[in-house]
């Protein structure tokens, strides 16, 4: 056991640092309530050697961080220039094509500030200190599940901090190098440093986006639910178009899509449907889509060729990966039943319909699945949906998270419009929250919605975090 844990430390820790680019900042709010109480130490002797052999890189990071959290020890160039200093100078940011190092440096420095803001830098620093203290407790591994959770979380934060600190360091080094090259009239070195700064400027834009997906559950897979509004076939067709947009979007992003539940419309479209989207950060992206989507077009179902307005509501539910944070379902609280039961059942009835509905009696939360081909599989999928709905409820209750993201389909008010798709008389898709717009609705309906998602994510995160830097 001891050996295994040691191996775990050695192999797991470094890879964590590379593999976990995001930080669950939400855990800052809720972690204390979910952390199990620490077991009393009984075999401290057993654990001490383990920690004595802790890989040195780990300690280095801790120190490195401790140093950078002191304002007077912020990384700086040989002539005392810091990232904040660069921003404060307000050097004009010119086109990328202009070979002006000040312009590049100013752009990168602004990005670093933005990343830090998005990552809630100060809260993160505080949390890392807490986690480090926890990791130093000799009896930590008495509870391996908790210990694993702590070390994973710590590894994730450290990875993120190292990345940003490293980026900061690189910027200052390149500036030093460039100034040195000028002093020494080394044109080759100067042009190399200039190129490096330009490269950093481009990478910085990607890193800004990555920092957006730092929510606690952002890395999860999710369910997406779509329901047509009032208005018959036209709105059911619109619901199907919206669902199709998400299926195509998910495919583009390389996510796996499974239909969980689908109620087709009589003539066309769907009344309501649920899909499961599997993949890293599926929830982080899809959560931006929660709300009501509005369509204006000449309806192909109207023989008089009139213009119609229809609505479809979208809900997104994360599928929590960490079993310890999931809502504990008590078997006896469930009522599991056939969704539609007709007649005598058994041998007298041959039906391919084996839809299952599960009701969680204490909360009244239900889940239905009818798209699988056996009752057993329908039950398993309905359980997965129910679990996620209950998790969502629990999340909202515990952390009082941003209410918008945790709304279920039934809670979404039809007034809560987030986006408008106009196909006629002009062509335009416009997000009502961010004012982001695209004049090619076809491409959007084919799943090209990343522009909308990213503009929304940056607008909310940047707004939220301004006060928290």
């Amino acid at each position, binding site marked *: 056991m001891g050996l295994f844990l040691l191996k775990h430390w050695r192999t797991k820790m470094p890879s964590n640092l590379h593999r976990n680019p995001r930080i669950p900042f939400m855990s800052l709010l809720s972690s204390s309530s979910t952390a199990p109480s620490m077991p009393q130490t009984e075999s401290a002797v057993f654990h001490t050697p383990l920690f004595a052999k802790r890989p040195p890189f780990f300690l280095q990071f801790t120190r490195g961080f401790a140093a950078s959290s002191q304002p007077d020890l912020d990384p700086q160039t040989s002539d005392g220039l810091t990232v904040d200093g660069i921003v404060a100078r307000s050097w004009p940011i010119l086109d990328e094509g202009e070979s002006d190092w000040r312009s590049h440096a100013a752009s990168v420095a602004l990005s670093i500030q933005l990343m830090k803001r998005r990552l809630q830098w100060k809260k993160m620093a505080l949390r890392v200190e807490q986690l480090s203290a926890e990791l130093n407790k000799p009896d930590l591994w008495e509870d391996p599940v908790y210990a694993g959770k702590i070390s994973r979380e710590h590894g994730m934060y450290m990875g993120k901090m190292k990345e940003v600190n490293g980026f900061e360091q690189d910027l200052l080094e390149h500036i030093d190098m460039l100034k040195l090259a000028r002093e020494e009239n080394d044109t080759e070195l100067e042009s190399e440093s200039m190129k490096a700064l330009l490269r950093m400027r481009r990478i910085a834009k990607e890193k800004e986006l990555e920092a957006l997906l730092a929510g606690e559950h952002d890395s999860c897979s999710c369910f997406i639910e779509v329901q047509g509004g009032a208005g018959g076939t036209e709105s059911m067709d619109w619901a199907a178009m919206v669902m199709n947009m998400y299926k195509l979007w998910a495919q583009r992003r390389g996510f796996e899509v499974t239909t969980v539940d689908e109620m087709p419309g*009589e003539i066309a479209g769907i009344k309501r449907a649920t899909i499961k989207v599997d993949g890293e950060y599926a929830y982080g992206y899809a959560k931006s889509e929660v709300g009501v989507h509005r369509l204006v077009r000449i309806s192909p179902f109207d023989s008089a060729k009139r213009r119609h307005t229809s609505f479809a509501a979208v809900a997104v539910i994360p599928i929590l990966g960490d079993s310890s944070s999931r809502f504990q379902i008590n078997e006896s609280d469930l009522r599991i039943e056939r969704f539609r039961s007709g*007649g005598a059942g*058994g*041998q007298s009835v041959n039906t*391919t319909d084996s839809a299952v509905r599960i009701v969680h009696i204490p909360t009244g939360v239900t889940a239905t699945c009818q798209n699988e081909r056996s009752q057993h599989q329908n039950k398993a999928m309905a359980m997965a949906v129910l679990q996620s709905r209950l998790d969502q409820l629990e999340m909202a209750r515990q952390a009082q998270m941003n209410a918008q993201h945790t709304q279920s389909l039934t809670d979404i008010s039809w007034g809560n419009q987030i986006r408008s798709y106009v196909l006629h008389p002009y062509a335009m898709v416009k997000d009502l929250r961010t004012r982001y717009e695209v004049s090619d609705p076809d491409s959007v309906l084919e799943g090209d919605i990343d522009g909308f998602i990213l503009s929304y994510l940056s607008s909310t995160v940047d707004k939220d975090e301004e006060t928290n830097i």
Partner: protein
Amino acid sequence: MTLCFTRTIHSLPFKHPRLSLSNPSKRPISSFLPHSSSQSPPLLHPISPKPHLPLFLRPPTSSATFSDLQKFHSWAKGLAFSVGSKFLDSDNGPDTDLLCREIKWLLEDAVEHTSILPHLGSSQNPNLTGSELIRLKLDLDDLYSLWNQRIEERRPFQYIVGCEHWRDFVLCVEEGVLIPRPETELIVDMVEEVVSKEKGLRNGLWADLGTGSGAIGIGIGRILEEGGRVIATDVSEVAVSVATFNVQRYGLQDKVQVRQGSWFEPIEDVMGKLAGLVSNPPYIPRDQIPRLQAEVGKHEPRLALDGGDHGMDDLLHLCEGSSIALGSGGFFAFETNGDEQSELLADIMTSKSENRFRDVKIKTDMAGIHRFVTGFRR
């Protein structure tokens, strides 16, 4: 426990090398009848010793263009919509919603790559010209005629595609074999529950009498421990060959043995040694047979449905035999036609069985019907 499968004369060879099975023993069907001598086997379809390969297992041998497949799709949907709630109202048959889902599943089984299917129903396909060739496991004409049979003849969907998804596996089925019902899945859940508590049951010998496609036997075979065995029996030759095929498809031939014969007849060698006995015997009262849903009454084997005048003939026979077949502490579970039958059976097993059974319970299915009777041999 050491097992000796001595009486294998009536069953097929245990490990069959070929996909299509042929039965060397051509015994007259009458000798395999259940104990109830009044029963005749009015099978609609002649007994075929070779199981048909279900659609989803066939290799792609044909192809059609995307737009041809789209035409089929909208034609099939049109037929489904023309049904409305007609079947539902007349005999509790499928409605449009259900038929539409079946079209989706039919196509899933029929095409080589299912990724194309979501595009069939949508109006705009910017990336598809319609001339793309889609590889199919049957001719497009056959696809039309199968869906026509589904609607016009009410041929069960599971016979059309040759399989039934049951629990977490896929069973091959064909005419002459009862299509396993969703309710029956719960018998495996009940067995799972008792074997999780008792090791003796976990690695003991089980019997599934009247196994049909092999569903319960395979379900139990998959949850027993190393050492646990199942004997799955059926009187019908088709059922035996289909069950054998299904057992082999899941690689369970060392765990689940299929034997041919009526009820306890093929398991005489293990009487008194069983750790568990389960069955979904025919239980429909004879006078209800003519009024059954068309998919059932017109297409499924009467042999697997008709339980005699009150539907209890075979259940009573099983109840009687299980006190001899089960070892001490052995578990049983029987499926019944519902409320009255299960109450009667439970009553017989508690009060009229000289204390041979304990913990006799009635269990409900997911529709709330008292579907099962379970208990233990003392």
